[in-house]
């Protein structure tokens, strides 16, 4: 049990501002990272991140998590626009309650869509916010996949198709929503969000 968590203030509202993250378990020290750990970080710059150095304690799980994440969100070969994938990530994070994850992906969604007001509305009002039909369809799908038991059904697929999405785009929304049910649980449980000091 680490008793070394820095004094900090956890944010108590959703925001597009930069938020810090402090680990509750001891990350591997930067100086102790082996070649295997560094390879598992995928981006060497992540050696600065306590989150990734903590996950590096299981390097195989970290590496495959990261490569899955990058392809779902960054692969530009057709499918759902990046803004929509990021919206799904932000909506899942809003529903699960991950203020840190929501801040990052709300920023990305706003950057790629230029729809800052709608993104802020999602953060302020939650997943019931009216964001226009296409984004409402994306958020509804993300919510239905996140709920336990899941409520995702043919009506969600039909609504995404009606919004102009093909199989690849819909599978991007499914995978993006599913991935944030992975990411939220790690970010929420292994450390605490902190207002930047």
């Amino acid at each position, binding site marked *: *049990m*680490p008793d070394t*968590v820095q004094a900090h203030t*956890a944010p*108590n*509202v*959703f925001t597009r501002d930069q938020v810090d993250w402090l680990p*509750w*378990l*001891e990350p591997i020290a930067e100086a102790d990272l082996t070649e295997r750990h560094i390879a598992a970080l995928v981006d060497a710059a992540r050696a600065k991140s306590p989150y990734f150095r903590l996950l590096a*304690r*299981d390097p*195989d*799980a*970290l*590496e*495959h*998590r990261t*490569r*899955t994440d*990058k*392809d*779902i969100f960054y*692969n530009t*070969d057709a*499918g759902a626009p990046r803004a929509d994938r990021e919206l799904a990530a932000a909506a899942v994070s809003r529903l*699960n*309650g*991950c*203020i840190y994850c929501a801040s990052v992906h709300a920023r990305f969604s706003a950057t790629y869509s230029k729809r800052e007001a709608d993104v802020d509305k999602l953060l302020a009002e*939650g997943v019931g916010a009216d964001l226009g039909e296409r984004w409402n369809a994306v958020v509804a799908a993300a919510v239905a*996949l*996140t*709920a*336990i038991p*899941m409520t*995702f*059904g*043919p009506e*969600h*697929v*039909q609504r995404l198709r009606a919004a102009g999405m093909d*199989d*690849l785009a*819909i*599978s*991007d929304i*499914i*995978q993006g*929503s*599913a991935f944030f*049910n*992975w*990411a939220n*649980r*790690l970010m*929420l*449980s*292994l450390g*605490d969000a902190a207002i930047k000091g």
Partner: protein
Amino acid sequence: MTAPDTDLIDTLVGIAPGSPLGAARARRPAARTHAEASYRALLLPAEPGDVSIAERFAVAAYVVGLHRAEGTCAHYTAGLLEHGGPALGKAVALAVAETLAEGPKGSFPPGPLSVEDTPAPVFALSAPVAAALGKRLEAAFAHAHFLVFHPRDAAAERFRPLIEAGWTTDAIVTLSQLVSFLAFQIRVVAGLRVLAATP
């Protein structure tokens, strides 16, 4: 139980090569490859380290059971039977039945979001089921139950029962990845099954 050239998500969804969904998955090749590699790294690692294969499948069968994920249930139940045996399989099934709940729930840091707070589902195992699981898995299931249903109730104190039950820091990271990865895999399978069935 899984041949080297098979892909578990494709198998569970029923995706054939050349089908529309097979084509969609082929356009995200790294996501497909590394979702499968994540499964193998977390469930069937060559070096299990601090978490045995039986423990991994016990946690997985529990998490899948809590999700009522029919698409993935049979696979992990069979895996648990193979790696953990029938007595553990029965204990896990009973643990699922005793602790089913709905999610996501939990409380936000006190403030404007407190109006959205919902009570955390209770985790309580009967004495015989807890005894059949043993201390390590009982602590792991309590942690998994929180991660599945109310992850926003996270707190540093939640690691104490795991540490007291013998979970090392490395093992806690693996356990956290295992539960969280399953939250992903279960949803990909469920989502793609609906997509495949909805022309």
